[in-house]
């Protein structure tokens, strides 16, 4: 904890030295976080990261205020009203995790017209005047197959666990996985189930399809939150556990660590850190500071590999998700990458 805030403070200090005028430019600016949902561990961690990093930024005088607001229900109308309130309250920038990609466009446009900077992240908005800190979910799916291709050059049969049917994220990750498989023809997806990103749903779905699948499945490609359930289903069916890609949940990492200690089990884990809210915060601060920031930015993945598993597991709250907070320098790096 202390170390992270230390790094943040250091980063803020470094920024003030490097940018020179940064303090003067944004120290009187107010930034608000508009959030539509807080009912799972990911969102809780997202809010805590925001509090930690922006609290320090306010104390250091980087910005005047960074208040977080969450709507009671996950509803577009409510969040639109919340944004209108923020306009009236005179915030200079709104960092937004939107309930809908299109539904808030009217309110976002109003904010832009009032001269307010709007930075959307995770749940992004399509309104052109807003910035988007988006996740390349398709690449995330493809990375899983690329990792497997490197690890198992001979290829083999794969089982795919998808997320919640009908959600954009599920389609994106899955299309990335399928694209990766198409490019690496030594792999073949022999079964696909929906695990709804929940371990018990995934366990049930995998248990149902497993008996009808061939014995020589080499790996399970997943979307996060479902790896542990898949492992349980393989165990219950009395099968050897294949390589299961994990999604940074604490129970997945813990299981992986146990297997690693017991038999040298190897895999990797990838997801988005809830701390992405802090990246959006620094992006907003940079825009207020007058920096030239492209409208479309990409969030880096938080990837855990064999050698940094212990370190990440130790930093992950029991029952939570592996997390990292971003610094001003991280934000600058993301902006520079987008410019290229």
């Amino acid at each position, binding site marked *: 904890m202390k170390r992270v805030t230390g790094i943040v403070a250091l980063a803020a200090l470094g920024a003030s030295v490097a940018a020179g005028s940064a303090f003067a430019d944004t120290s009187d600016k107010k930034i608000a976080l508009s959030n539509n949902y807080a009912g799972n561990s990911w969102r809780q961690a997202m809010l805590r990261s925001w509090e930690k990093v922006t609290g320090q930024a306010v104390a250091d005088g980087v910005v005047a205020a960074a208040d977080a607001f969450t709507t009671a229900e996950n509803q577009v109308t409510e969040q639109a009203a919340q944004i209108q309130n923020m306009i009236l309250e005179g915030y200079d920038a709104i960092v937004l995790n939107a309930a809908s990609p299109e539904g808030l466009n009217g309110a976002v446009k109003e904010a832009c017209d009032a001269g307010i900077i709007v930075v959307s992240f995770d749940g992004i908005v399509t309104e052109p005047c807003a910035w988007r800190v988006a996740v390349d979910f398709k690449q995330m799916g493809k990375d899983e197959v690329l990792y497997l291709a490197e690890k198992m050059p001979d290829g083999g049969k794969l089982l795919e666990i998808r997320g919640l*049917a009908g959600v954009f994220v599920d389609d994106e990750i899955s299309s990335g996985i399928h694209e990766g498989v198409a490019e690496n023809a030594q792999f073949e997806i022999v079964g*696909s189930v929906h695990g709804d990103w929940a371990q*018990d749903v995934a366990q049930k779905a995998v*248990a*149902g399809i497993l008996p009808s699948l061939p014995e020589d499945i080499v790996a399970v490609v997943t979307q996060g939150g479902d790896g542990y359930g898949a492992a349980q289903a393989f165990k219950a069916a009395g099968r050897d556990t294949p390589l299961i890609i994990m999604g940074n949940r604490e129970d997945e990492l813990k299981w992986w660590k146990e297997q690693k200690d017991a038999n040298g089990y190897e895999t990797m884990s990838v997801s988005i850190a809830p701390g992405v809210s802090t990246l959006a915060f620094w992006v907003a601060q940079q825009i207020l500071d007058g920096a030239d920031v492209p409208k479309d930015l990409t969030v880096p993945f938080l990837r855990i590999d064999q050698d940094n598993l212990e370190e990440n597991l130790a930093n992950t709250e029991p029952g939570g998700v592996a997390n990292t907070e971003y610094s001003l320098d991280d934000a600058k790096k993301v902006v520079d990458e987008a410019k290229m």
Partner: protein
Amino acid sequence: MSSIRQIFEKPWIWAFVAAIGVWIATITFTQGQGAGGVLTAAFSFATFSVIVALGQMMVITLGPGNVDLSIPATMTLAGTVATKVMATQDSMIIFGLLVALGVGLGVGLVNYGLIRLLRIPPIIATLSSSFLFQSAAIWYNRGLRIKPPPLLADFATSTVWGVPVLAIFIIVLSVAIHIALHRTVYGRSVTAIGQNMRAASLAGINVNRVRFLTYILCAVFAALNGFFFSAFSGGAALNMGQTYLLNSIAVVVIGGTSVAGGFANVPGLWGAALFLFLVEAMLNTYGLGAGIRLLLTGLIIVGVITAAGGQKTAR
């Protein structure tokens, strides 16, 4: 011949016919591979559906408006508290079970307290109490996933000749409930209240006591399910009960119990629970897209209910 006709007049037979049909359709596709494995998995998961459905069935049988929506939260709370109390110690299993059952008892008391003392309709009372129980589970352990004691986990996942041991226990429990329903004063009273509460009351049945016992029973079964399910799946998770709300109601209705109350059916619960698992397994095995899968699931369920209902009106 007449005995065959008699069997087909039973409302629960259609759930079994559907389950067997779906199973055959699955193994035809895989050319026999995994025939036994699918059945073992189906019995493993049907067991958990049946535990909660037994309680839900009794509640629904009490008549229109009676339903317990707090089942998922009760499962979560009981599972969370029990795994924490047991702290992976084999010697604490019995104590953990008692704690889980105690949680169920408490939940039942709160639920019926809201229904009876504050005169809140059951659907609202159990919905609002479920928020309390879910919050209590979050507060008690903040989503921390504690493993079940190894002995308990082995028990919950063990099989004898392909039959899950837990399923055998729950089949025995189902038989007990079946007998209670048809052969005891309590069971007959539940049915009578569901058919006509006023008539039952005038006939001298203590309506409040029977309803009270039924809500307690339902909550205790939900807690029992939370206990075993967290043992089965390697610990209690905050969302572990989520799928059991609609599932418990669907199993009851597909199993041939009247949703309007007054008529319960225990054997159908097993047929329906196996059927619902096998349908999903079959559609996954066929490798169909999610949209078509949901569509077919809906159509198949409608088909089975229509077949069962059509038979009843013909009678």
